[in-house]
Each structure stands twice: as structure tokens, then as C-alpha cells.
């Protein structure tokens, strides 16, 4: 057991868990934040994507001891009231089908836009390549990122 403190969605959070426990399960089972999803457990699908100091990381392979003292943002903290430009675009374009992968997709997309406010399609694909969607929402994901990046009408 280890006592680990980190910033979670802007607030200080302290947990007493095994240090090797992946951040994903600390978020979900210990802290009750269910938005970050379990998909593969080995950084292959991106469903568990969160931000660590603003960078998109896979929380399923990130030991909680490695986030000690650092800042983590989850889908629940992406915006105050669900109105991040990406969240708005996702709803407007009706992106989700089953929806399970979408929190991870949004977190990857948000990290992309934070560093590159108006990415090209190639840049979108490259940044989103780690996020799987079995329902096949990729076309709408691209459009939604374009819209949030102010490139609405381009194809």
C-alpha cells in the first residue's frame, strides 16, 4: 500500500492503494470516476486515455505511483459543464454509436487541439491512431475534430 497524492481535475486527491495499481482502476474503482474506460489493459485501444500534465496517456498501463504530485485530467474534468468545443461538436454531429470508446477519443482529440488548434486530416489521423472504435465512428470523429478546429467546411 502506498499513499499517493496527485491533482485530479484541478483538485488535490489522495489515495491509499498499491503503488503498481494502474491509474485506470484507481480512477474507476477507488475514486468512482467511471468515465475513463477499460478496453484492453495494455495501451492498445485508447479507451482509457486521460491527460497527464496535458499529454494524452493510457491510464491502463500507468502505475498510480507514477502520477504522484502530477496533474491528471479525465473526461469528467475536460470542461466545467460539458461544453468543450470537442464535446459540443461530438453532440452536434451525433458521433457516438455505442459510445464506449468516445471518452478516450475525446481526450486524445483534446490533447491534439491543445497543441495544434487546427490540425490537418493527416495530423488528426496520426493523433487518433491509438484510439479504436469498433462501431466505425471514425468519419464523424474526423468531422467533429475539424469542426472544433474551425475547419468545418473542408473535406
Amino acid at each position, binding site marked *: 500500500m502506498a499513499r499517493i497524492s496527485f491533482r485530479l481535475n484541478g483538485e488535490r486527491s489522495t489515495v491509499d492503494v498499491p503503488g503498481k495499481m494502474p491509474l485506470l482502476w484507481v480512477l474507476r474503482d477507488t475514486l468512482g470516476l467511471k468515465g475513463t474506460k477499460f478496453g484492453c489493459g495494455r495501451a492498445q485501444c485508447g479507451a482509457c486515455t486521460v491527460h497527464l500534465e496535458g499529454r494524452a496517456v493510457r491510464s491502463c498501463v500507468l502505475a498510480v505511483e507514477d502520477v504522484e504530485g502530477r496533474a491528471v485530467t479525465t473526461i469528467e474534468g475536460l470542461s466545467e459543464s460539458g461544453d468543450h468545443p470537442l*464535446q459540443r461538436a461530438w453532440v452536434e454531429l*451525433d458521433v457516438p454509436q455505442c459510445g*464506449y470508446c468516445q471518452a478516450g477519443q475525446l481526450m486524445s482529440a483534446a490533447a491534439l487541439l491543445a497543441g495544434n488548434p487546427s490540425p490537418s486530416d493527416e495530423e488528426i489521423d496520426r493523433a487518433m491512431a491509438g484510439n479504436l472504435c*469498433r462501431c*466505425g465512428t471514425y468519419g464523424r470523429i474526423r468531422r467533429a475534430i475539424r469542426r472544433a478546429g474551425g475547419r468545418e467546411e473542408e473535406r
Partner: protein
Amino acid sequence: MTTISRRRLLQVSALAGGGLLLGFRWAGAAAGEEGGASFEPNAFLAVHPDGRVVILAKNPEMGQGVKTTLPMIVAEELDVDWRTVTVEQAPFDEARFGDQFAGGSQSVVENWEPLRRAGAAGRELLIAAAASRWSVGADECSARAGIVRHAASGREASYGELASAAAALEPPQEPRLKDPASFGLVGTAIGGVDNPSIVTGKPLYGIDAEIDGMLFAAVARSPVFGGRVREVDERAAREVPGVRDVVRIEPSEDPTWLTGGVAVLADSTWAAFEGRRALSVEWESGGGEAESSDELSRRFAARLEEPGEVLRETGAVAEAFARADRVLEADYEVPFLSHAQMEPMNYIADVRPDRCLLVGPTQVPGSAQGIAAALTGLPREAIEVRMTRIGGGFGRRLMADYAAEAVFLSRAVGRPVKVQWSREDDVQHDYYRPAGRYRLRAALDAGGRIQAWEERATTTSRYLFRGSDAPAWRTEVFPDGFPSHHVPAFRLEYAPTASKVSTGAWRAPGHNATAFVDQAFLDEIAASTGRDPVDLRLELLGTEDREVPYDDHGGPYRTGPFRRVIERARELAPWGRTLPPGSAQGFAAHYTFGGYAALVAEVRLDGAALRVERIVAVVDCGRIVNRSGAEAQVEGAVLDGLSAALHGAATIAGGRVEQSNFHDYELLRITEAPPVEVHLVESEESPRPLGEIALPPVAAAVTAAIAAAGGPRIRALPILRALAG
């Protein structure tokens, strides 16, 4: 394990936007509605005096959009402003709601009329309540967007104001339905009702659900199909912090219930996974080790040399082959496919001596309830089933094996239990799309016309695996499938191949293989006779609009609409347009479940490097209820079909699945996803099935394009493995 305080939990909960601990309560424990009589003319809708309109979504939502689409039908006939509607997931209660399942693309089809009637009954009663209040004739009043008006006097009343009065009235037996020409909601594009919750990470899925006091369980299952637990050393597992118990699960007779294994129960998912890792289990062989993909391929080939069951024979087949100018023959093979839905299997059961609560993602809540009844001895009435949103179904969750595990374990330990599968569990213990081999022969005359079509198939039938009463060929091959009934002589023969590999339904069962085989062979016929592949299909269908018998579900079909989707795809692509060297188009079409689909795929081939650049999909599924959802189903089915065609293969070695996670069981990534241009045929007919319709022809359209681009004829999927040689 955790020292987080209750206060802190509440803070986190507030931060998360609420809904931290999901309040799954026993039925009857819920607080009653406040504020006077609400109007609930049937199970599907309620209008409250404060004006709130609640519509219940009866079927499980797995991404096919029914949580939005079905309530839209009620709202249309009730005639309310969609923005005032709150949609709630109905509990499982088939006595009140009728069939509640998700499969066979049936939800909209089966519920279109009943839900229209439910909404219309509400509107009629609200109008009657207003007419009575104003002492005027009901036929002098009209309703629109939640308000009843009396045109002559200009009086109006909102549904909320009328709710209590309407509640006292007797619902009509035969409510008058709207003229579809006056539809204002049906046919428009409405976003999914859960979207705002999805994009903010609210707990919606089975994996997010919790019950107070529940344990998390991870189950070790025999890595080799058919194996059983011989011995368990659980000492190390019990020492893992958080582990509470280790329980052996006995396999059930029915292989779709309990496969058996050893469960580790713990305070958290992670502890359960770690505990399972520490288990040492010795497995007793069920004789599965001998099975491998290569061995299975050899058995398929040998099986096709033996006579099978003739499912359909029309015309003089032998004679046509004897007289043929030329005979074309090809063997096709398809691999096992895993479902690989994004949310791994999970389920919660709380078994008490006199009742049981089930919570989780399932396409078949009734099966979960039935299995729970059988395992516990409780009557179905004592088993409450709550449906959560499903993180992908695709047929995997037509099986309730993981629910059975939860029931078994909860009963064993006397506490609520959530069973949680890992991705490895999912990939290695699936009910796979059956593997199979198909031998096609065509007798061609001097003009290249098909005089006879013969198809001999063998697959690891899911009904055979299950020991079902249904014949093994059912949903493996289709005696009425195109081009049956369109060639002078036709013969279909089937022989099942026994396998220990568990098989089940995978989106568009059977059709996901036969459409590839039949359409790819048609493309070969067209190529070898120098004819245009689209023209060949149209020739076979003929110009007359006629009804064609089709004994699988969704039949009969008509040649007219089938022609129209093909012609429309040809026009929209447009078929035959000039592409750069190395690029080419491929065509395929399919009818099943009541829906027509035609696809044009464009690919670029650079050596063995393949890029699918564009897919045009035309679908006729009758009237569109939700345009956004309908287009999404086609976009998704096409990319799902492409994912399986390019990558999909669960291969067997030593009686076990060789793949274990997404690094070796690959799904299509965004970098490989072409734009999908969807065209839905405008139709005044009642809605027909949609969710599975666009998937079957994808593999054939892409392999046809590869051949047209100068690449090889790919007859064994997946495509990328074939191209890699």
C-alpha cells in the same frame, strides 16, 4: 484498501457531475412520483402535470440507436416537442413492453406499429380530455407539439394541464394513426439521447454499475477449448491484498451457459485480476488440443469431398454442367472472428434466497433471466433485470454466459458479484463467427451466361456447437440467397464440421460469410467472361419487378428495389470513373433481413500495400425514422465489415485461440478508415431492418476492387493476411 472519506467521495461525485454510485434499487423501493395524477395511457409514455413527457425506451441500447429511435416513434404520434421529452431505459418486463431484445436488426421493424399506436392513443386521449373540458367535439380539436387547440374558439391547453383529466379516460382500442405525410419528427436527424452523458463520462454502461457490498470477480477459464479444472492452488491468490474468496465454477451441460473455471473475488477489479494472475490451475483436457486452423482447413477440404445435405436443388444442374461451354470453380474460406466489442464482458448479480437482481449489458435480458432462474431455482417473477447501455454487442451479448457466471458466484458467496472479463478473456473465450469453406461452381454457356450455380459449404455451425434442435445449416447458408431463383439451375449443399471452438452470432450471421463468397464469385464470373460486374447483377435480376421467395427472415424480397440500389450505387460512385493507375473500383450487393445494400469500393494497390480510399453505400431500409442514426448504422456497418475483411481472424493452435488482445487481434484504425458515402433510398414503406444490412457485401466489394487493380483474387480472408502471402 482505500482511505478516501465519504465526504471526499461526494466531492469527487460532484466533480464528476453526479451519478457516482449508481442507485440500482429493488423494484418498489423507488420513491413515488410527486404532484397529482400523471397520464400514463400505456407502458411507454407518461405526461406529468408539470408538463414533463417521459418516454420509455424498451429495448437494449448497444449503439444501434434504439434508445433514441424507438421513443421518436412514440413522440411523433403523441405529437410533442422532442426537446421536452425525457427518455428512460425501460426495465425488463415483457408482459408490459413486449419483446425486449436487440438482435436481427428487428427493433424498429417490430416496434414501428405498436409504438405508433402507443403514442397515438396518448394524443387521442389528451384531445378527448380537452374537448370534454371545452364541451366541444374531439374532431374540432387538434394537437401539435404538446398543445391541444380548438380552432373555432382559439382555446388551447397544454398536455401537462390535460394530464390528470386524460388519466381518467379509457384508452382507445384502435387509435387513429397520423398520416405519414404529416410526420414532423420521424425522418429527421436526431442525436442520441445519451450523447451529452457519453461525452462527459457519466456512468452508463454495465462496467460502470455498482451495487453496495459487491465483490469484483475475475475468472480463469480453460485456455484450451473444452478443458476443465483438475486442480487449483489458490494460496498465492488469497494472499493478494483485496482478494476475498476463490470459487470454482462448475461447467453447465449447455456450453452457452457456464464454461466453468476458477473465480477470484476481490474488493476491486484490479485486485481480482491480480488474484487471478496468482492462481495456479491445472486443466484437464477435453481433447481440444488437436484442433488448429491448419487442421481445420484440411478437414473443411475433406468435408467438401463428401456428400452433404442438399438444401435446395432446382433446374437440371448436372445436365447444365455436362453441357457447359466452360465451368468456373473456386474455393473460398473464412476464419473465426472474435466480436471485439469495446466494452469487455461484465455483469452484476445479487442473488438472495427469495429474489435476484441482475444488472448489466445484454442483448437478451430474457435469456439472462432464464438462466438465472435455472441456476437459482427462483421463479422468473422474482428475478429483476436492469438493462444498462451496452458498449457494443455485435451478437456477442446474445449469449448470457457472463451473466450466468455472475449468478453462480453471487449465489456461492451470498453477496452481490460483478464479473469482469479482461480483453484477453474476451478474445480467447468468445462465441466466434464460425469458420468455413465454400466451393462454388458455375456452368457457363458460350455467351458467358450462368446456366447453373452450385455451392457446397461446410462451417463450424453455431447450432451444431450448441447442440440445438435447429438444423446445423441454419444461418450458415441461405437456400434463397441471391443468385438462387435467378439462375436456370441452382444447387446448395451443406455439411457441418464439428469443432470444439465455441461459435455464435456475429453481426449479420452467415451473411457476413456468404455475401463475400457469392458476390466474390459473381465478380470472378464477370471478369472471366469479360462482362461488367454491375451489368451481370442487373441481368440476373431481370427488368421485371417481381417478388422472390426468401425463407430466411425479412423475405420475400423484390427485384425492383434490389435493382434500384444497384443502379443508384452505379450512378453515384460513379461506376467506371477514371482512376489513377493502381486504383480500381469493386462492386458488391446483398439482400438480407429485409434490407437491400449495394456498395462500390475504391482501392489503391501499391505492391502489396493496400489502401481502401472510398466506399459508396446505397441502402434501402424502408422509411427512415432517425436520419442521423440510420446513416450512422450504414457508416458503421461498412467500416465494421472492412475491419473484419482486412484484419479479422481468430486462429487456433493447440486447441486455443492464438490472439489475445488488440495487438494481434486487430481492428480497423482511423488511419485505415476511408470516407463512407451513405445514400439511403427515400421510401414510404414501413421501416425495414438496417443495423446489419450494409456489412455483408463489404469484403466482396474490396476484394473485387483489389483484383481489378491488378492484385490477386483473394479467396481466403482476411485480406491483409492474403496480400502478405
